[in-house]
């Protein structure tokens, strides 16, 4: 899939260091380029490879930061910090790792660092009635996306990140467990609970959609 995306870049030009560098890889080469191969090329100094990788990952990564932090300004900072760390620590990346897993692990750490001690790590038991089962304000002017963002923001961080990584980013249970350091069963439970809580909070919206 991503290789095909590369092929679409054939012949594309990018201004790098105020000089035009032409991406010269052939379609066949580009199709076979995985994230890991592109990042290896970037480690070797190929800036165009980084640009391609950035284009692939910027959307999913920004969405993750935005929904994890719930604030566009903080998401912007986390998004930039993540890529800054990717650039800074590029030499430490080992090609045996899945690049996306490595990238989102960095993003996760950046998001946690962004909140620091202010982050609410409450367990499900800590969630009171105001957070569970009580519908959020169903203002007619508030779009469904905003309601969803608000509901996601009410989830605890572990539930939120597990759900985002699974539903939004397409990671498997195993990959999420590796990234977060949790057990496989714990990840399954988090995702299940996150879905359940979201459904309860958004039930009026979902039912109105149904009707």
């Amino acid at each position, binding site marked *: 899939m991503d290789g*095909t995306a590369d*092929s679409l870049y054939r012949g594309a030009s990018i201004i790098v260091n105020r000089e035009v560098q032409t991406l010269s890889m052939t379609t066949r080469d580009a199709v076979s380029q995985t994230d890991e191969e592109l990042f290896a090329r970037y480690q070797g100094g190929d*800036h165009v490879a980084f640009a391609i990788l950035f284009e692939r990952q910027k*959307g*999913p990564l*920004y969405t993750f930061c935005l929904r994890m932090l719930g604030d566009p300004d903080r998401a912007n900072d986390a998004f930039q910090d993540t890529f800054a760390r990717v650039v800074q620590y590029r030499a430490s990346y080992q090609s045996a790792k899945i690049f996306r897993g490595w990238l989102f692990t960095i993003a996760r750490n950046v998001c946690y660092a962004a909140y620091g001690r202010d982050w609410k790590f409450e367990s499900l038991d800590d969630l009171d009635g105001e957070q569970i089962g009580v519908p959020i304000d169903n203002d007619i002017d508030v779009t469904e996306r905003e309601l*969803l963002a608000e509901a996601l923001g009410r989830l605890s961080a572990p539930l939120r990140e597990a759900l985002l990584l699974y539903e939004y980013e397409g990671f498997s249970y195993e990959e999420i467990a590796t990234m977060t350091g949790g057990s496989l069963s714990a990840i399954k439970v988090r995702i299940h609970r996150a879905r359940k809580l979201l459904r309860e909070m958004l039930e009026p919206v*979902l039912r109105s959609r149904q009707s």
Partner: protein
Amino acid sequence: MFDGYLSNYLSGTLDDAGQVELFHILAVSDEKRKLFNDHMRLRSMMASDRAMTTVPPDVAGAVLQSAIGASPTVMAPVAAATSMFSKILMPAAATMGMALAGWVGFTIGHSQQNGTTQVAANTAQQAVQQTVPVASTPEVRIQRVYITRTVPATAVAELPLENSNVIAQTQAGNVTAAPVQAAVVPTEEQTISRNFTSYVDPAPVLRYPLVGASDAAFTPMLPTLTPDTTTDEALPRGEMEFGQGAQLIQKSINNSNLPAPQPVSLFRFRFGARISRNVSVGVLVGQNSFGLKYIDQPNNYTQRSISQYSTLVYAGAYGRYSMHSMLGVTPALTLGIAGSSLGPLSEFELSAARPIFGSVSMFAGVHSDLQMFKHGGTWFSSQTISIMAGIGAGL
């Protein structure tokens, strides 16, 4: 039990037996069915949320700038769905604008020439002479036709002075010949007064003695007409042209700051031959930039919208239909089918050409490319609309 089935179903890990159980529960329980529907809609909401979230261009640009020193340029051909205004009205307006500008320019350019031609034509009409029907030809080629005949001296002598000229002119498909100047030679002053400066006869030749009673006794001697290389009589005739264009609609895709191609990204070379008066066929090679947008589904639960830019080289064949010239400008409609590394491509071009010297002409027009490409078993397309200009030559 139901929660377990539901969770596994949403995760894509529910086996066949579990699915049977789940659907049975859904069939018999309204409450569970509503719950199931809620989860499916929730998933749909999350997918929509993910697809609609975009990175602010300044943020993405800042990352690229700091990471690799790149200055992303946001300029791309159209890939996303365009409005009716963009699809129809803008190209139409551009075409009409060019046509109007060309008409005004060429009309101004023709105004003085028309004035001179009119004087000569009136003079020819006044002459009492034989007319020789010939095929209607553009006036630029009329001046190449000479008709020489002899006229009795007596008849010529009877002509009024103002009709005794050697102008060969054509009007409405007729060539009017009045070639004899031997009998009555206008004075220099008279010649100037008739404003014949637009045409000077190349020394008429008297082939026969000036004998006979009247014009009716003489048969005009028509010269042998050699094929005019500017007409279809010389077919087949090769043609080649080069065109360069710029995107007419420059629109980024998804507010993307993707590194985009240069504004002038359309180059096209054609080589062909005319197979009839109006139709040409040949081969083409071109290059254009496309903004490509497609949907990717890495698994059953994730759908991603991917936007990319690509500059592609394509090669194929074309066919052109040239319409009748108007005011020296020849409109043409060109259709081409080609292939690039991503898939088939078609091009459409509406242009207008005008000779500039010899067989060389310049042209301008509107050019549109439609690139098809396949991803994940699904075909997608991207369209560009460009204005272009170039130069062509007949071989």
